[in-house]
């Protein structure tokens, strides 16, 4: 199996932009060629060889495994737009890891900074430590964020994870986040996200959610007033076919969103509001 090993030789003075490090770009290249690939630090161009020692043998992107060692907390954009293969990062990693990837797998054995897995279109991103703000979120001004794929974070995710998620049951796209705990505004403006949180969540989970499922196995510091209690449930079906068992209180929402439908009940002549978003909080 082809494998490339990169080891950070020295810490950059300024953030190092390493969007070139992905199986797609390193596939089929010799170590000398890889060393010459361009990176950016501040307003200067540099090369992979300048900052990393490179070893191993490259091959087809599909089977290529890139292993990166060192404290990469100042290295941004690793695995940007990757489509296949695997990246294993041993250490903390900087912003935008795996942003817009559509296939393959990234494993971070450490913490990740902001925008990890932003606008993911497929594939899998696993972080064993904590992640920063905007995990799997849409970039500024985009109305369609994470479209598919899975993000797993063992620890805490920051604020506004998975905003503007864009899932579809018909098209079988299930943007999914599993995390230990979460900051505020989890899954804001969600359109079909699946979020499972093992622990506690800060205020305003599911703000402006049109449809989607948020399961919180801990507590929410402040529940939004626009969520309405439906009742207790013992089993939850997720979009991707998984089932979660346990005692949960089911809420529907976000009732403030206009995109949810107001229907007038013909019998009672009262406004009936159908809302597809669901929030489950452990009872």
């Amino acid at each position, binding site marked *: 199996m082809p494998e490339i090993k990169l080891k950070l030789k020295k810490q950059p*003075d*300024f*953030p190092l*932009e390493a969007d070139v490090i992905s199986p797609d770009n390193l596939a089929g290249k010799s170590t000398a060629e890889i060393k010459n690939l361009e990176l*950016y*630090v*501040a*307003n*200067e161009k540099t090369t992979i060889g300048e900052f990393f020692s490179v070893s191993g043998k490259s091959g087809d992107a599909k089977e290529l495994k890139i292993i990166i060692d060192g404290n990469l907390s100042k290295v941004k954009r690793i695995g940007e737009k990757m489509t296949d293969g695997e990246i294993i990062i041993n250490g903390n990693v900087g*912003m935008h890891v795996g942003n817009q990837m559509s296939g393959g797998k990234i494993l971070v054995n450490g913490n990740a900074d*902001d*925008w990890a897995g932003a606008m993911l279109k497929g594939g899998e991103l696993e972080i064993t430590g904590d992640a920063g*703000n*905007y995990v799997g979120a849409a*970039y*500024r*001004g985009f*109305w369609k964020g994470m479209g598919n794929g899975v993000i797993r974070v063992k620890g805490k995710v920051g604020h*506004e994870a998975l905003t*503007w998620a864009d899932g579809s049951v018909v098209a079988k796209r299930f943007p999914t986040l599993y995390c230990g705990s979460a900051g*505020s*505004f989890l899954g*804001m*403006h969600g359109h079909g996200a699946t979020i499972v949180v093992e622990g506690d969540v800060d*205020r*305003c989970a599911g*703000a*402006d959610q049109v449809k989607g499922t948020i399961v919180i196995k801990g507590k929410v510091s*402040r529940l*939004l*007033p*626009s*969520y*309405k*209690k439906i009742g207790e449930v013992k089993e939850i079906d997720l979009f991707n076919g998984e089932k979660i068992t346990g005692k949960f209180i089911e809420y529907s929402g*976000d*009732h*403030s*969103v*206009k995109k949810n439908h*107001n229907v007038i009940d013909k019998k009672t002549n009262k*406004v009936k*509001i159908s809302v597809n978003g669901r929030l489950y909080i452990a009872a």
Partner: protein
Amino acid sequence: MVEKKINTVYDVVCPFCGTLCDDLEVDVNIKENLVVEVRNACQIGTKKFFSSNPSPHRYEKPLIKDNGTFKEVSWDEAIDIAADILAKSKRPLLYGFASTECEAQSKGVELAETLGGILDNTASVCHGPTLLAEQDVGVPTSTLGEYKNRADLIIFWGSNPVHAHPRHLGRYSQFVRGYFRKDGRNDRFIIVVDPRNTHTAQIADLHIQVNPNEDYELMNGIRAMLRGVELDAKMISGIPIEKIKELIKILKECKYGVIFFGMGLTQSLAHHRNIDTAICLTRELNDYTKFLITPMRGHYNITGANTVFTWNTGYGYSIDFSRGYPRYNPGEFSSVDLLMRDEIDASLIVASDPASNFPAASVKNLFKHPLISVEPHHTPTSENADIILPAAFAGIECEGTAYRMDHVPIRLRKVKDAPGECLTDREILEKLILKVKEKLGE
């Protein structure tokens, strides 16, 4: 004939806040080049005109710090040293631009692009979240004249215009008589939402005393109730549900409503999410009546800075040129976050005072690196700078264009000459661009 001593300039535009009052009258002593009287302006605007007179607080010559004290140098020398610092730096931060005219701002963009640096304006610490929310959900807005003539419901949410925009109430929103609001104040209903009973709230018809940092929940609740949803909660953000119902009735029944919002929403927790939901609320209120929303911009030309940066680069603030093309991401390239992570190596501050206005922890990192200040006044930033380039006051000592808070461009007037060797911001930036290009070999 008696020689004329005092010249009165009419219809002067006040370069202080985003209201950009354009009816000032300024008397200038021509012989001594002094402002002697300002009429129609608010307290702050008046003070600004007077403070442009030569005083111990004004810089008149370029200064360079030498062993802890400033020494006077020639313009050529100051520009040369400043350009040297900028050309050698790898990640310079160009910050400020809100209190200068549009021509200087576009020169700032050119300099940032030449240097491959980071360009930011003061929106980054005030109404940046407004821009983020506008990019996410759009904005239904109008000009202030429209509000003056038509609005019968005015909401100030997290904004205190009595203190921050003193003439806004008199010119556009509260007391002024409009074409369809002939009786002025009596024809308008004023609502203030604020955790404190501010002076604006004291002259309003209704004050909603919301808990600090809980605005989002309140607006979220209002939006749901507006659609006819019966909520589970009895109290939202410290406001009883009955009072919110009353409020919603007022919102629905007005003829033309407008929400003015300020720092109370953008600088408290939830930041741009507050604005996001406020815009959605405004949009949804249009199902019942006419409703619009406008941010109360602080600096007189911060709207101009956002506009000029946008038509030059595509983005309003927090722009990074390090890869040769503009990229935008507040939080990554915004000044305070950059400083907190200590990611810059030099800074050029144009017409701004980050040392006073940034959180202390970030100011520490600002002072670690060479600092060039383009500034007419003694400020905590300029006093700690390495190079001070004395500037003329835009709008008082030079002409230019500024954008009012509702995106109406207004031509600033010149009422007197700048003292000493002061140059305009535009001239200083032009000189810097030429010198930097020369040093970079372009």
